[in-house]
């Protein structure tokens, strides 16, 4: 069979060589670099499968229905956001390739079209988020804006049982080092105040008797985080390094 992939051919192999008395000097241009990926490691697959949000990953048979309808991939046009491929890479344990998407995986907006349509009952959206968590927890991906938001949201809600929306907005902006102009905040604040919607700080809603429930859930959260980190040694940074 002819070799059609020229880039795989190493051309500088002209050498003088004698084997068993026969001169075989010449252009040994058929020495190919290995095309076989050898550093597959099922650690990522096992970890994702081991999470309640990720356990359905093993049902995926790679039909691509999720990706065809994915609002990020198709509607928004972010082609490198390919949930089918992310699942494939996790399934075969091709972590090096997966890490190339460290800046992309977190962008899923949880529209759940993939979960709705998956013919195999894969909870695609939750699996993708689990893969994202793996990348963050192993240090392969930097903490994403969505990671920071999820955490700020959860901490905010566990404080009183009811979300303090204006406070979440302020906290998150602080985390990102962003600042909405004071005039705009004031305009919004006055509008909310005027319509009786500024439930923040001392005016925030709270769930009666939440103190105890909040403490138990915070404990559950810590325990879950400990369990998730267990056995996950941080990986070296991706080739090229994080930005």
């Amino acid at each position: 069979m002819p070799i059609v992939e020229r880039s795989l051919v190493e051309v500088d192999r002209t050498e003088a060589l004698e084997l068993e008395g026969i001169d075989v000097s010449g252009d040994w241009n058929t020495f190919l670099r290995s095309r076989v990926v050898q550093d597959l490691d099922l650690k990522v697959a096992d970890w994702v499968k081991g999470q309640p949000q990720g356990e359905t990953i093993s049902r995926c048979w790679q039909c691509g229905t999720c990706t065809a309808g994915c609002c990020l991939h198709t509607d928004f046009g972010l082609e490198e956001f390919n949930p089918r491929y992310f699942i494939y890479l996790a399934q075969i344990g091709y972590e090096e390739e997966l890490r190339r998407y460290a800046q992309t995986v977190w962008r899923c907006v949880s529209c759940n079209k993939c979960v709705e349509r998956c013919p195999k009952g894969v909870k695609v959206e939750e699996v993708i988020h689990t893969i994202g968590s793996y990348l963050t927890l192993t240090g392969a991906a930097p903490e994403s804006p969505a990671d920071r938001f999820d955490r700020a949201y959860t901490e905010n809600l566990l404080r009183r049982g009811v979300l303090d929306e204006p406070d979440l907005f302020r906290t998150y902006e602080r985390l990102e080092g962003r600042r909405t102009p004071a005039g705009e905040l004031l305009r919004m604040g006055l509008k909310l105040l005027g319509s009786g919607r500024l439930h923040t700080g001392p005016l925030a809603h709270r769930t009666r008797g939440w103190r105890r429930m909040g403490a138990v859930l915070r404990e559950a959260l810590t325990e879950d985080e400990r369990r998730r980190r267990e056995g996950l040694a941080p990986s070296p940074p991706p080739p090229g390094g994080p930005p």
Partner: protein
Amino acid sequence: MSAAPSRGPTDAVPAYYPGCSLDGLGKAYEVSSQQVLRALGLSLDRIVDYNCCGATEVKNLSQDVSVALPARNLALARSMGRHQVVAACNGCVYSLTRANDAVSEPATRTRINTTLERGGAPAYDGTASVQHVLEFIYQRAGAEKVRARVRRPLEGLTIAPYYGCLYTRPKRYTGVGKVPGTDDPEHPHFLDELLEACGARVVKDYAAKTICCGGGHAISDLEVSVAFSASILNEAQRAGADLVATICPLGQINIENHLDRIRTQFGPEVLRPVAYFTQLMSLAFGSSLRAARLANNFSRPDLFLRAKGFS
């Protein structure tokens, strides 16, 4: 494998789960929902001391916390003697039904109930069914009853019905499309019918009907959420609608939060006023613009509607 979601027994007066948005930024949705329900002779019994459901965010950190939060609310509804819970927010419907799916597995239910008990909440038996307020109004009253109740038809208004993501999706959680009498998960039409019954013209080829608004990434991924919010308005413009009706506080707030950015990036002609469907229904049932709190919305549908002759 968990059991398919089903709606189970019905209550004359189901429990009502407001969620944090309806008591906060989405107050106009809460107020107008009550007006609509009252006008149709329907009532709901509010879950006192509810807690926030965790939406789509908490599950990314912890499965147990993301199940326990909504399960506590469902347990409270059960201890009120109710089998049915109505929520007005798509995010709430998602997380409450997701919790139902999770606790249908006995081991998970036991673990979650231990957590609830330690936190001082009643245990949850997994038997409260959850539905969106849109589905509740459609099933209990229906288009005919709505039509009979209209005092001030929404004539002259062309409305784009925006359902968003999690009203129907995914059916393995919400049951929509699986349970008889529920909406179509890919091509929902309950909102279309109710608004038509109110006398409005509803655009049929509204491409953005069920697209995402950016959801929980509203402020953490502006590039995506502004683009989606803009296309919800842009498609409404293309379809010839002058108003967008929403059924979810997250969708409403995301779009309105991005109005300035949409104006800058896509031009002022894309902008449309956005209102909760219950505000529009309440208006049709005879409420004033003020009573339906239409001036609360940042996109100011009240100004547009006043120009159309509503008061």
